[in-house]
C-alpha cells in the first residue's frame, strides 16, 4: 500500500525527484515551476539526497549543465516553464540529438508575449518536434507517477531520448490535492541505477560527444533518433506494466474514459481531462453517450492507437490549449485528424482552442462542446472546424 498524502503538483514533482535522487539537478527558477528546484534545494541542504545541485544563471545553462552531466555519465534532471524552456531551445535539440536521457519537469505556462504567468500549453507545443518524449499529467498523482516512470523509459538502450513530464501551471502545480506516494525504497528499486553504455568519464573508452556532423552522417543520425522515438512506444507500455505491478495504477498511451460505447468524444490533455470527466458523468446521467480520450503520451504520438480508439465515434472535438496561429487548426487537432485520415477512419472532427493564458476552463464550457458535437451528429454539418471556447466576443464582459 502506498502512502496517503496531500501535496501540490510542484511538491509531488519535487518529492519524485527526491526519491529518484539523481546525480545532478541544474535549474533556474521561473514561475510556476520555481517551487520544484526550491523544494529540491532544501532536500539537498538537509541531506535527504546526495545530488549535486547546480544553481545556474539561466535556463540555457541549466540545460547545458544537464547535457554535460548526462554525457559524463550522470543522471540529470531539471524543471522549467514557458520562457525558461524558450531560453533552453538551442540545448533542447542538442540534448535529444546527443541521445541523452535527461528528465525535465515542465510546468506548462503561456510563452510571452505579452507577458503572462498562467497556464496554457504553448511552451510544450513549441518543442513538440525536438525529439523529446512528452508525457502529460491530469493531476499531481500523474505528474508524480510519470516522473517515477521517466528514467526507465528514457534510459532504455532502445530509446535513449530525453523526456519531459508536463503538468498544468497553477491549476495542478499550486493546488493541494490527495496523492498516493510510493515508499522511498520501492522507488529506488524501480528506478534503478543509471548505467550508461557510453559516457565521457569512461577512461576505458575515450569518446567524443557532439562533434561536427555534416552531409554524410546527420541524416542517418536523425533517422536513428526517429527510430528511437518509435521504439519508445513499446518501452513506455512495458514500464507502465511494471509500474502497475508496483502500485496498481494503470497507464497507457492514453486513458479512455467511457469511450467504449460513447458516440461523441473529446480529446484533450492535462487538467482539462479531469474537468471533462466530471462533465461526462453529468451527461451520462442524462443518457447522453459522451466519452473522453485523455492523451498521456503526446510524443511519441500513438497515431494508430488513437485512430482505432476513436473510430466508432459519431463526432469528436479535439481541445488545444495552445493556438498554432496557422489559419488551419492547432497541434493536437492536426495530429489526431492526420492519424484518423492515414488510418482510414473518417469521423467528423472539430478543433477548439481554449484556456489561453490561464483563461479558466469551466465545466459549462466543456458541456457546450458536447452540445456542439450533438448538433454536428444531428445535422452532419461543420461550419468552422477551427474554433474557440472561452474567448470573449465584442460586447461580452
Amino acid at each position, binding site marked *: 500500500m502506498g502512502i496517503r498524502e496531500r501535496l501540490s503538483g510542484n511538491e509531488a514533482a519535487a518529492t519524485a525527484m527526491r526519491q529518484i535522487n539523481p546525480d545532478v539537478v541544474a535549474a533556474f527558477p521561473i514561475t510556476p515551476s520555481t517551487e520544484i528546484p526550491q523544494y529540491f534545494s532544501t532536500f539537498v541542504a538537509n541531506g535527504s539526497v546526495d545530488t549535486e545541485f547546480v544553481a545556474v544563471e539561466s535556463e540555457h545553462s541549466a540545460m547545458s549543465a544537464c547535457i554535460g552531466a548526462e554525457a559524463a555519465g550522470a543522471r540529470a534532471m531539471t524543471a522549467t516553464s514557458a520562457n525558461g524552456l524558450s531560453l533552453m531551445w538551442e540545448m533542447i535539440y542538442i540534448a535529444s540529438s546527443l541521445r541523452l536521457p535527461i528528465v525535465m519537469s515542465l510546468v506548462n505556462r503561456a510563452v510571452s508575449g505579452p507577458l503572462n*504567468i*498562467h497556464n496554457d500549453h504553448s511552451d510544450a507545443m513549441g518543442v513538440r518536434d525536438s525529439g523529446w518524449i512528452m508525457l502529460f499529467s491530469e493531476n499531481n498523482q500523474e505528474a508524480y507517477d510519470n516522473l517515477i516512470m521517466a528514467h526507465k523509459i528514457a534510459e532504455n538502450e532502445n530509446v535513449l531520448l530525453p523526456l519531459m513530464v508536463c503538468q498544468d501551471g497553477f491549476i495542478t502545480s499550486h493546488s*493541494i*490535492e*490527495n496523492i498516493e506516494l510510493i515508499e522511498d525504497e520501492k522507488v529506488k528499486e524501480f528506478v534503478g541505477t543509471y548505467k550508461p553504455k557510453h559516457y565521457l568519464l569512461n577512461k576505458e573508452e575515450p569518446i567524443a560527444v557532439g562533434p561536427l556532423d555534416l552531409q554524410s552522417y546527420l541524416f542517418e543520425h536523425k533517422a536513428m533518433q526517429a527510430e528511437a522515438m518509435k521504439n519508445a512506444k513499446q518501452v513506455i507500455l512495458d514500464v507502465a506494466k511494471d509500474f502497475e505491478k508496483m502500485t496498481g495504477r494503470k497507464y497507457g498511451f492514453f486513458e479512455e474514459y467511457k469511450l467504449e460505447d460513447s458516440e461523441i468524444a473529446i480529446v484533450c490533455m492535462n487538467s482539462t481531462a479531469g474537468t471533462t470527466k466530471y462533465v461526462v458523468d453529468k451527461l451520462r446521467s442524462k443518457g447522453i453517450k459522451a466519452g473522453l480520450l485523455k492523451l498521456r503520451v503526446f510524443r511519441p504520438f500513438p497515431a494508430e492507437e488513437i485512430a482505432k480508439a476513436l473510430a466508432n465515434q459519431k463526432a469528436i472535438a479535439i481541445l488545444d490549449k495552445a493556438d498554432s496561429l496557422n489559419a488551419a487548426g492547432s497541434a493536437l487537432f492536426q495530429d489526431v485528424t492526420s492519424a484518423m485520415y492515414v488510418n482510414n477512419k473518417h469521423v467528423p472532427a472539430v478543433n477548439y482552442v481554449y484556456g489561453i493564458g490561464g483563461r479558466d476552463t*469551466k*465545466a459549462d464550457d466543456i458541456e457546450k462542446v458536447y452540445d456542439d458535437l450533438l448538433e454536428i451528429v444531428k445535422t452532419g454539418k461543420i461550419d468552422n472546424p477551427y474554433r474557440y471556447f472561452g474567448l470573449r466576443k465584442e460586447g461580452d464582459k
Partner: protein
Amino acid sequence: MDNLLEIRWHGRGGQGAKTASLLLADAAFNTGKYIQGFPEYGPERMGAPITAYNRISSKPITIHSNIYEPDYVVVVDDTLLESVDVTSGLKETGAIVINTTKSADYLRKVLKGYKGEIYTIDARKISEEALGRYFPNTPMLAAIVKVSKIMTDEELLNDMKGSFKHKFAKKPEVIEGNMKALELALKEVKKI
C-alpha cells in the same frame, strides 16, 4: 457527506485567506476526505482582493476549474463587501461567513438580498485577544468549519494542534494563542 462541498474565500493579500484555505484542506484531509485547496493567482500584493478555493468530498475530485457556485463563502475582510460580488453564484442552501462588526441591516443590504444564511464573527477582537495581533485567518477557519460542519469542533482542534506544532516549530510561543483563537471563534460565530 457524500457530495462535493465547495467553498470560496475572499480576502485581501496578506490576511492569510490562501493559508486558511490550505489549512482547511489539510484538516479535512486528516479526517479522511478528498480535498482541493488552491488560490486564484493574480498580480498579488498586500491589500489587493484575492480569492482562494476549497473542494471537499468523500469521493475523488477530478474537476479542475475555479468555483462558480459555492456552497459556502468566507469573507475575511468586510471592506470587500461593497467592491466584490461575494455572493456571486452562492447557493441559497448554503451560507456566507463574514468577519465583521457591521449591523445585520447593513449586511443584508450589501449582500443584495442573498436568501441563504448569513453568519458573522469578529475575528479582529478574537485575534487581538488570543494572539495580541490581527491575524484573521485562524478564527475564520474555525468559523467556516463550525458553519459547514465539515468536521466536529474536537476534530478541528486536535488536528490544528498538530498542524500548528509543525507550522510554528520555530516559534512555539504562538501555538497556544492560535489554539485559543480557534476555540473562541468556534463559540462566537453567530447567525444574523
